[in-house]
């Protein structure tokens, strides 16, 4: 490798907002006053607000500098496993900002918002087609709320059938949001272990599935990046006992155009528009977590539903079995626009290619690194691969050290210490957006770090060395929380 991307450049310091404030400055063009002052009521007004006053240029410099301390997908490769950090097309940002969309009031009469309703209706249809499911609600605000919606649907379904179930099966590879979402429906999570091949076995599921169990939550491909090969048998076992199957679609980016989620026995699936469908992650949100369901669960979907009659779109609240409302309005409409634009610009063939290239990149990383990093499951992976810190232990360096050292090479680290079933996990998801040469540079960096671990482990322990701040003390932050200035 000739040139390291993480070269040190000019990095500017920046104060906190209130350290810059000077009373009397302003960064806002106050609209002209064209009405008289109206008397204020007595006893309910505040004396002053303690917010800093800044000029427009102060504000612009402040946030520009902060932005320069951040690393995004536009900055470089961001192979954060389970998060699908793919490229976020620029045109989509432009389209979501069109005045008709960005300026639309959510309670407009239907006659005045046909475009917005039509977009949502079309997007529902496209997501149903991509997943193979029958009906879609776009209302959940993010993946975790999609999961909650899925649990609510399962809960409502059982209640409607007069059945009171108390448990839900959650594999040990599940995202932490799974058990937390299930708990909101009063379900007690029943763990089930994956087998020595990193996947669920029909025997393990059959052992815990009973008529007290509402269903199972399955991420497929799972968080080890492996396809649950026995999924058909597992969903049959669950269905036979009257349970339902919740599919966590966080990893849908591996299987577009390949897998039919309804056919594998999924009853409800959430998608993350901010993963599979390229909408930006925004530094941690906003996301959008639509749920896709079978015909059987459709009556329970959240309200309002988007309906179409004689080429006119409308909102319908009249669904007595519905789980109710999840969002103040209809969900993250601004995010939906970007996902819709992405799907329309890709089309069926390119979406499938995206999945195939995502899987190609992950398998390539796996093959090129497995001689230097321990690969606990040496089998074909899907969109991500998981290594461990086993071979690093001799040099007394950790997964965290490798992650921090990657920063010095100009890469965002992978997801670390997850999934929990693997000790010291390094979970790499390159996505289809990374070209071969980019992936090659990443592989070279990972190999160089493995060599450093053996020769000069302090390079890893003291990493990152090239960032503005060095390793941060997270223990101190939690011990004496300081959450505001």
């Amino acid at each position, binding site marked *: 490798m000739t040139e390291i991307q993480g070269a040190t450049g000019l990095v500017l310091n920046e104060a906190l907002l209130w350290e810059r404030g000077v009373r009397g400055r302003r960064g806002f063009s106050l609209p002209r006053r064209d009405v008289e002052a109206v008397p204020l009521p007595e006893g309910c007004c505040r004396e002053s607000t303690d917010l800093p006053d800044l000029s427009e240029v102060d504000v612009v410099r402040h946030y520009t500098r902060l932005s320069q301390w951040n690393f995004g997908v536009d900055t470089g490769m961001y192979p954060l496993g389970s998060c699908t950090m793919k490229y976020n097309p620029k045109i989509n940002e432009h389209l979501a900002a*069109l005045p008709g969309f960005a300026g639309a009031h959510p309670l407009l009469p239907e*006659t005045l918002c046909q475009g917005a309703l039509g977009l949502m209706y079309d997007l529902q249809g496209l997501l149903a087609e991509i997943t193979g499911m029958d009906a879609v609600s776009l209302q959940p605000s993010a993946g975790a709320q999609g999961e909650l919606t899925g649990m609510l649907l399962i809960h409502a379904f059982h209640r409607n059938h007069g059945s009171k179930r108390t448990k839900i099966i959650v594999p040990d590879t599940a995202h*932490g949001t799974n058990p937390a979402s299930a708990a909101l429906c009063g379900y007690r999570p029943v763990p089930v272990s994956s087998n020595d091949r990193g996947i669920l076995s029909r025997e393990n599921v059959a052992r815990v599935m009973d008529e007290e169990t509402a269903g199972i939550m399955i991420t497929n491909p799972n968080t080890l990046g492996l396809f649950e090969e026995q999924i058909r048998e597992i969903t049959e076992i669950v269905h036979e006992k009257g349970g339902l199957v919740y599919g966590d679609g966080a990893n849908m980016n591996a299987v577009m155009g390949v897998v039919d989620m309804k056919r594998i026995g999924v009853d409800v699936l959430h998608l993350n528009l901010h993963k599979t469908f*390229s909408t*930006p992650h925004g530094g941690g949100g906003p996301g959008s977590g639509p749920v896709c369901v079978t015909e059987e669960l459709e009556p329970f979907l959240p309200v309002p539903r988007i309906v179409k009659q004689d080429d006119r779109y409308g909102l319908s609240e009249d669904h007595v079995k519905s789980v109710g409302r999840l969002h*103040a309005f209809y969900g993250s409409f601004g995010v939906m626009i970007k996902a819709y634009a992405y799907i329309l610009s890709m089309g069926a063939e390119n979406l499938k290619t995206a999945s195939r290239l995502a899987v*190609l990149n992950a398998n390539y990383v796996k093959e090129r690194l497995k001689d230097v990093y321990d690969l606990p499951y040496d089998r074909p992976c899907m969109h991500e691969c998981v290594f461990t810190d086993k071979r690093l232990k001799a040099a007394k360096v950790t997964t965290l050290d490798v992650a921090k050292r990657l920063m010095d090479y100009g890469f965002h680290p992978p997801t670390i210490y997850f999934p929990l079933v693997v000790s010291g996990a390094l979970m790499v998801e390159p996505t289809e957006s990374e070209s071969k040469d980019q992936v090659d540079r990443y592989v070279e960096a990972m190999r160089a770090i493995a060599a450093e671990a053996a020769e000069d482990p302090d390079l890893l322990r003291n990493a990152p060395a090239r960032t503005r701040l060095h390793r941060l003390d997270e223990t101190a932050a939690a011990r004496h929380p300081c959450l505001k200035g």
Partner: protein
Amino acid sequence: MHYLSHTAEEIASMLEAIGVESLDDLFTTVPEACRRKKPMNMPPPLDEWELTGHLERMAKDTVAASGGTVFAGGGSYEHHIPAAVRALLQRSEFYTAYTPYQPEMTQGTLQAIYEYQTLVTRLLSMDVANASLYDGASALAEALLMAIRVTRRSRVAVSRAVHPHFRQVVRTYLGPTGYEILELPFREDGTTDLEALDDVSDVAAVAVQSPNVFGCIERLGEAADRAHQGGALLVSAFTEPLAFGLFKPPGDQGADIACGEGQSFGIPQSFGGPLLGVFATRDRYVRSIPGRLVGKTVDKDGQRGFVLTLATREQHIRREKATSNICTNNSLCALASAIYLACLGGTGLEDLARLNYDKAGFLKGRLIDAGFSVPFGAPTFNEFVLEAPKGFDRTYERLLDQGTVAGIPLGRWYPELSSHYLLCVTETKTAETMERLVREMTS
């Protein structure tokens, strides 16, 4: 496809490195019985220019509030957004990053959210704020769940003058676990009737909204006293936080949790989402807070920095025992609101709130002069309820045909208010536009 960069040669050489012949061979672990029988059926891909045309047509089929003719609020407010806010949000180092799991690479997001938390606590006069939730409605639901956790009680009292959509979301969140929700009626002046609390005991939380759904300022101090007498927390919700530039914030009136919608602060209305769930509480409840928190710390050289903290409350560690199932916050929306508040500053916020108050007061006064009645006597901010004379529904429809939305008909939410409309005025409405509306409404 220009979002994909692999050439055929590169694919071939990568397949060779893996040791398989074709891309299909990468999917051998997917059993035949799991596969699609047919390819996905979708329209052919659109190029960038076709796509733009297609979405522009759809956007034109939706009336933008910026036309100056939508006098509706009801949880979504039209406010001017400074160009500086829009420009800074387009910094892709912010919007293409993810959750700041690796603090050395995400100090920008982390400091910005720490500043956001600080601005929120100052605005609401509370001790501690989280890094944001999805929207005001789920923030209220999370607040009630938190009150249930900290009081170990299982019923909550929610005012009917809380936004009806918020109350629906609360029912969705609290329903399956069987928590009881009591509704408090509203009085003739448009504020919550707290007398109804006399008949109930063991309430975990009393939830009111101020300004409430009718735009009326609630007597939060009184509500706090009543709640605390019975050992309950006061949860004070809001949909229009700009009001706190003028009116006493919930923290100065005894609220234990203040939560609500932050869309007014620099976030486009965008047909109702994405939104910003603002959540703040007292120091003593810090370990029961739902959602993410950013805290100050130092790096190994003693330099100031910021990290996600108190993660032991959260789902990825506590799993089913977490304080919430939430994983993300609405970070970019929180950033937008922080930049917006930084532009306004304290004095700007006070001036803008006063201007909103005066403009809404102007329309209210003109409509009263024109013979309309304003049934609720409590002070209002930005929004107020109008009782329309018989036959006004035809006028309302005629105005709609012209693209003017003369408020939100309240009958859909409150059957007893079927001839009532909720009107909203912000700084975006000129005196001239309001005069024109009054003329149209009376002609």
